[in-house]
């Protein structure tokens, strides 16, 4: 067996194992010097990115991948003496999982490149990089796992490492306070999810998502299932920052370093992935998806509107962007919620699937431009030393590249063609309009307000007389921003590249819970 075959057969496990090994080795390697540790961290992140790409390729070519931990060959997902229950820990990789894994590892790689320069000269960097890798592990694990309890474990890894990273720059105790709030809120959420998992386990004797969905479909949707569903859906909606449970978002994103804000933003997209996975695959066959879909739509509308109006008020650049990520999450909830509300009806093929594709494409686009905007905010703070917009001005005189990258990100988030934000917003508007015109109107108004508040940032930070005599940021930060800008322009002009390989498989995978269940319960062959 060659190395290549070995990597292909073990790709889902390696996608978790490699960054985990990287995280545990980083503190030891850091004793050999910062440069060695950086090379190690970046090569681990690069290999993880390669594995995520490989997973996308495998899923697009061979269908859903099932990986069994500790079992002999992959056909041992259901051992013969287990009575038809998948007892082992299983990783199930379908289009949506591979999509989420790809965006998680990409933002991890970009943040790693960015922090080469931005964290230079700060203390406790061995722990910083170990936690960064652990955060990647948490996101990838949430995306790839096919087991409910495993999902909870990775959710905890995700929130704890994110909380620790938020408090990395102590900032006179403000960052620590934000991290404390984030930790408390997410531990309460994780306890709720554990409670829901216990309910489901007590009822169906299984922790495997496919098995639970199958048994729930056979015995019918009971009142206990409803409680479990409410606990899981509301908690994951809180973890992805939907209004009115978004209060931790501006605190957490606002106080973290720039690249960590971008990573936590993608970590909450991983929670969004969990929400969609639960709604479609686990509860989609038995629960009332119409009212569930409308619940998500209303959360999405509130998030879009309140997020953007609150953002206009802010004069702290990171808090402003944090409120915008609340509002962008609203678009995704809206798009996929429309898909969920029409699931199983004839409307689904007319516009529901298209709305879902729009919502999922928006996740990718949001990762790109929101990540870029957080990185530019980090660059500004790196040079100016304050995050208060009132004290900034005239930065475009010297930080020309940062200004250009900021402009690309701002135009993309506001949905100005030909950048990528326009494509997904267009898809959401057109399909959502057919369900209810009011939804599309709100979405368009929110888009305008987004443009207004980013123009406000551009004017007050970059335009005007030269207030600061600063240099351009170091090269590694520019490279990180350049990578994201390149993909923004690429997906704006050739949206079908992302649509064909990433978005359409993800939307089809979500819309087909039966295929997922039969694949896992058929032994994964």
């Amino acid at each position, binding site marked *: 067996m060659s190395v290549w075959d070995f990597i292909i057969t073990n790709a889902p496990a390696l996608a978790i*194992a490699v960054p985990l090994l990287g995280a545990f*080795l980083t503190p030891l390697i850091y004793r050999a010097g910062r440069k060695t540790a950086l090379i190690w961290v970046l090569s681990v992140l690069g290999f993880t990115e390669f594995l995520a790409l490989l997973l996308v390729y495998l899923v697009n070519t061979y269908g859903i991948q099932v*990986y069994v*931990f500790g079992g*002999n060959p992959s056909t041992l997902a259901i051992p013969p003496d287990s009575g038809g229950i998948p007892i082992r820990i299983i990783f199930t990789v379908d289009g949506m999982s591979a999509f989420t894994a790809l965006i998680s590892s990409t933002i991890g790689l970009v943040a790693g490149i960015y922090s080469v320069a931005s964290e230079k000269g700060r203390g406790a960097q061995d722990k910083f990089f170990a936690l960064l890798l652990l955060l990647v592990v948490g996101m990838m694990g949430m995306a790839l796992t096919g087991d409910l309890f495993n999902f909870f474990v990775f959710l905890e890894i995700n929130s704890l490492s994110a909380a620790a990273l938020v408090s990395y720059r102590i900032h006179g105790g403000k960052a620590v306070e934000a991290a404390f709030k984030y930790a408390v809120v997410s531990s309460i959420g994780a306890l709720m999810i554990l409670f829901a998992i216990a309910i489901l386990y007590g009822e169906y004797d299984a922790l495997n998502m496919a098995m639970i969905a199958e048994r729930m479909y056979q015995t019918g949707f009971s009142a206990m299932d409803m409680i479990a569903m409410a606990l899981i859906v509301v908690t994951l909606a809180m973890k992805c920052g939907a209004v009115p449970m978004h209060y931790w978002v501006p605190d957490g994103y606002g106080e973290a370093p720039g690249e960590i804000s971008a990573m936590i933003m993608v970590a909450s997209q991983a929670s969004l992935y969990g929400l969609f996975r639960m709604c479609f695959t686990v509860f989609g066959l038995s629960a009332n998806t119409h009212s569930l879909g409308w619940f998500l739509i209303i959360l999405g509308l509130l998030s879009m509107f309140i997020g953007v109006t609150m953002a206009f008020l802010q004069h702290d650049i990171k808090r402003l962007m944090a409120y915008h990520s609340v509002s962008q999450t609203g678009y995704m909830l809206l798009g996929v919620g429309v898909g969920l509300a029409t699931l199983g009806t004839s409307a689904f093929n007319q516009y529901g699937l298209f709305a879902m594709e729009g919502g999922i494409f928006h996740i990718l686009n949001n990762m790109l431009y929101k990540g870029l905007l957080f990185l530019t905010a980090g660059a500004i703070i790196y040079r100016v030393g304050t995050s208060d917009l009132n004290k900034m001005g005239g930065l475009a005189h010297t930080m020309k590249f940062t200004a250009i990258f900021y402009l690309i990100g701002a135009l993309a988030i506001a949905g100005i063609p030909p950048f990528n934000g326009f494509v997904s917003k267009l898809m959401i508007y057109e399909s959502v309009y057919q369900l209810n015109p009011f939804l599309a109107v709100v979405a368009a108004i929110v888009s305008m307000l987004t443009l207004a508040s980013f123009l406000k940032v551009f004017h007050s930070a970059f335009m005007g007389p030269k207030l600061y005599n600063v240099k351009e940021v170091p090269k590694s930060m520019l490279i990180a921003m350049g990578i994201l800008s390149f993909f923004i322009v690429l997906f704006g002009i050739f949206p079908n590249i992302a649509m064909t390989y990433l978005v359409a498989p993800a939307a089809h995978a979500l819309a087909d819970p039966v295929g997922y269940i039969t694949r896992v319960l058929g032994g994964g062959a």
Partner: protein
Amino acid sequence: MMSKIVRTQANFLYPFILIFGFYIVAHGHLTPGGGFQGGAVIATGIALVIVAYGYDRVKSWIKKSTLTATESIGLLCFILTAFIGLSTSFFYNFLANSGLLFGDKVSYGANPGYLNTAGTLPIMNLAVGVEVLGGLGVILMYMLSYGKEVSK
């Protein structure tokens, strides 16, 4: 530093707590408990000493960097054991029933419990025990190292 009564009791109890913790770790695959529980019990022993003697005396006996390294080594042992199983699949129990270390076969039926069985599980229990001991110890030491003690 606390009163002499507390210190004497700590001196007396400390070895017993340690032995009990290592017992739980070593028998993790046979009796209730395991790496995490055993490691926590050992860390309780450390906590007892720290509370009884205060940070200034303890810091010359237990180094923070040693505890951090202990934590890293425990985690590494765990993940490397999982990695060696990659010849078949991640976390594969390659030692079970092999006749090697922890590789004895167990016959069916009731038995008093043999320590030399279960393959990689005892190794992972030991690794987790060492990791939890280091991690909780580091938490305690850092809790203690910041701020001054208020004298009453």
